[in-house]
């Protein structure tokens, strides 16, 4: 899983890096359009295009029937029944490509979130570092955080046994990519931290070897299981996307732009959806 994550992360690094100096909205919009195109192509390959075309024609025909024979109640009801029936057929034809689309789209979303959900810490900004122990593991209060030069540890640990967590506050002093060291006594684990003015891939959470968690947080190698740690998290600031005066979550932009791109480009790619 770690190897798979590393490969996919490297691929997205290649795709996203050209946008590092721009406002994140540019990169997000471009990659959403690309995703829309990928969705179109996957849809074309995995769907029965002829059957979809056919069923859509039938739906249109029955709509026409409704308009033409609106004075004949029996015919109208029959046409409406047929519209409903063909709609169900259309949905059946769409189901297979949708299932095929699910995996790549979720994968794209997870990896775009590493880039477009939060921004790196800027010089002078602070963040909370949070360590959480797994339910079954003992709560180890003897944990400390070591920060490299360029990062300041501002508070002692706040140990909350009831929540099985330990928190610190750090401050970014200099730009760079750092490894914070969590001293477990015995042993240690690290957590990546990025301080930058640019767009960058961020691993907000380093998680344990739970496959679901590792799929959701692929930015760093998983934590060794014997540490008892469920995750180590850095609370990076969220990116605000202001579009026409509205503050919109990046996922909304992603879905709207990718779906709009799919509809706009379907004729170009000769895809019936």
């Amino acid at each position, binding site marked *: 899983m770690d190897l798979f994550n590393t490969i996919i992360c490297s691929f997205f690094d290649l795709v996203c890096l050209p946008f590092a100096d721009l406002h994140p909205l540019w990169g997000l919009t471009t990659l959403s359009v690309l995703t829309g195109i990928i969705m179109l192509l996957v849809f074309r390959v995995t769907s029965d295009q002829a059957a979809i075309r056919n069923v859509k024609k039938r739906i249109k025909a029955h709509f026409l029937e409704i308009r033409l024979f609106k004075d004949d109640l029996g015919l109208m009801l029959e046409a409406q029944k047929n519209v409903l029936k063909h709609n169900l057929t259309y949905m059946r034809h769409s189901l297979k490509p949708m299932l095929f689309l699910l995996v790549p789209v979720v994968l794209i979303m997870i990896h775009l979130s590493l880039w477009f959900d939060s921004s790196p810490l800027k010089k002078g900004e602070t963040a909370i570092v*949070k360590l959480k122990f797994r339910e079954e593991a003992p709560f180890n209060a003897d944990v400390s955080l070591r920060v490299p030069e360029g990062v300041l540890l501002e508070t002692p*640990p*706040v140990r909350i046994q009831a929540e099985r967590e330990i928190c610190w506050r750090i401050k970014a002093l200099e730009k760079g990519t750092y490894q914070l060291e969590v001293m477990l006594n015995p042993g240690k684990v690290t957590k990546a931290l990025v301080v930058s003015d640019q767009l960058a891939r961020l691993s907000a959470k380093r998680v344990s070897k739970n496959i679901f968690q590792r799929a959701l947080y692929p930015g760093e190698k998983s934590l060794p299981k014997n540490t008892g740690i469920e995750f180590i998290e850095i609370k990076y600031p969220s990116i605000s996307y202001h579009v026409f005066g509205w503050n919109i979550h990046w996922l909304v932009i992603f879905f709207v732009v990718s779906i709009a791109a799919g509809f706009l480009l379907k004729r170009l790619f000769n895809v019936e959806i």
Partner: protein
Amino acid sequence: MNMQKRTKRNEFTRREILKAMGSAAVAASLGGLDKKVWAKTRPPKVIVLGIDGMDPTLVRHFIKQGKMPNTKKLTEMGGFSPLTTSIPPQSPVAWANFITGMNPGGHGIFDFIHREPETLIPYLSTSRTTPPTKKISLGDWRIPLSSGEVKLLRGGKAFWSILEENGIPATVFKIPSNFPPEESEARTLSGMGTPDLLGTYGTFSYYTVDPPKDFSQMGGGKVFPVEVRDNKVVAHLVGPHNTFRRESPRATIDFTVWIDPLNPAAKIDLQGREIVLKEKEWSDWIVVTFDMIPCLGKVSGILRIYLKELRPSFRLYVSPININPADPALPISTPSGYCKKLVDDLGYFYTQGMPEDTKALSNLVLTDEEYLEQARFVLDERRRFYDYELTRFREGFFFFYFSSLDLNSHMFWRTLDGNHPLYTSQLAKEFGWFIPHLYQQMDAVIGQAMKIMDENTTLMVISDHGFLSFRRGFNLNTWLLNNEYAALDDPLSQEETEFFNNVDWGKTRAYGLGINSLYLNRAHREKHGIISPGSNASALANELAERLTKVKDPLTGEPVISNVYKPENVYTGEFTHRAPDLIIGYNRTYRSSWETILGKYPRDEFVDNHDKWSGDHCMDNVFLPGVLISNRKITATHPALYDLAPSILNLFGIKKSRTMIGTSVFG
């Protein structure tokens, strides 16, 4: 308005100014104009720095000591003059004089506090919020059928609106007496008078395991007793009234404080946000959202938390919840997006009119050191915004307001006045540097403005009033009671009287409300008025004025009141009839006590001022002129605050409006 008329009035529009500037630039680039002609052709620029509470005596003193070199230089370039302040010299009144070029009779702000004569309910004089009048009930919910209203009560037109009408762009930052901001094309941000989210001038919250005695009576803040269990404190933040619910309960937000078992640090969980603080540390701004109608109606605010102490006692201070400038619940700027733009460019900021939490210091919730830190945040923040706006200023008019000198002089005058009841040499040693330091800070901001001045720039540094020590409080209502101008229903409950609730109005002829206001209990005006208008009222007013000026402090033998003003002698304008019947001008070092302001009747007529609010300016205006310093020669012999609006209009070649009573100070 045609061209001929405009020329006659020596007025020109922004477009004409820009056109002239453009032509001049072309001509200059062709070598057709020399420097002097070019300077003359360029449009004028005016910068006004409003430094609340800057005292002319202290300015002269610090200039002499070499602590204010920029101010000295500015004085030498143009002039320095005491600036006659308003009657009474209270900030909302004084700044309204400046804004409108009128006196209180013209703009209708007579005191911090006014009252409804029909009900005698006091209200803040500069604005009023009215909830929606029509609502329908759905179970526990009240659905409004109309919107509520927040209204600026200041009458008269702001001079920057006149500038904008004439095409002169203006930026007016944090000016008092302008909440909600007067509709205008100018960029304005409201200042003093802007409430917090609870609708008050600032209400802090204090969570502690050992609440002070009589904590429920604490003014300016709310104390919440809490318990620490298993290193955890669960509490709630109290927000605004939820008028969508029956009986309008307060909206609240729960929060949890997790304390480390050994370390002096804690984590605060508040609406999904986690804040880690060390003991004696302030948080950054935190955005909170109060749900009014689930998923539909929310009110957003910003606050800062101070983790005062974790052990042995738990003490947590939460600042007043300021209106969130990124999502303002009430209008605080024109255009409405201006405050959001400031957040985008500079981050969150204090929107509350009086950001320094003087009440927390007065109530000993914050120590001198802690208050000082908070006051420094305010000044640092203000200076950041000043740098930003000053850098952007290119043309037209720019006003920027500083509150620090005023509010901190109120709180730290006891470090300068050796005769103040709270003065100690130790205190002077520890904190005596603070007020001089603030004057030096103000000198630095003056220096910044001087750096961007050119030949066409007029820089004016103004203050609304000076400062004096507040050593003794005078219980005006008690004096009225003792001298049979007032009577109580139950004399045995005299000290429990609040908001005049024990007053026998049938036998009461006069009452004090507000800091400098005295009202007669007039028939047909007051709810239970007994003094008939005309000669009776006039005779009573004369009698009171005469007797009050003879009142002497038994401790010092000094007169307590130096002047009593009658509105018809000092006010002009459409609101004069709403003025108090008498305006009390207290002698140096005296002021109305805090108790008498809101209708209390304490036992003693005099009280030593043991409040850290130790400096004041709500005395006789003759003792408290403000300052006017400019790079232009000041020709007026006795410039007054209401002269400044006509002066500014005149600098742009615009005639003052008919309602303005002043004249240009520059001749």
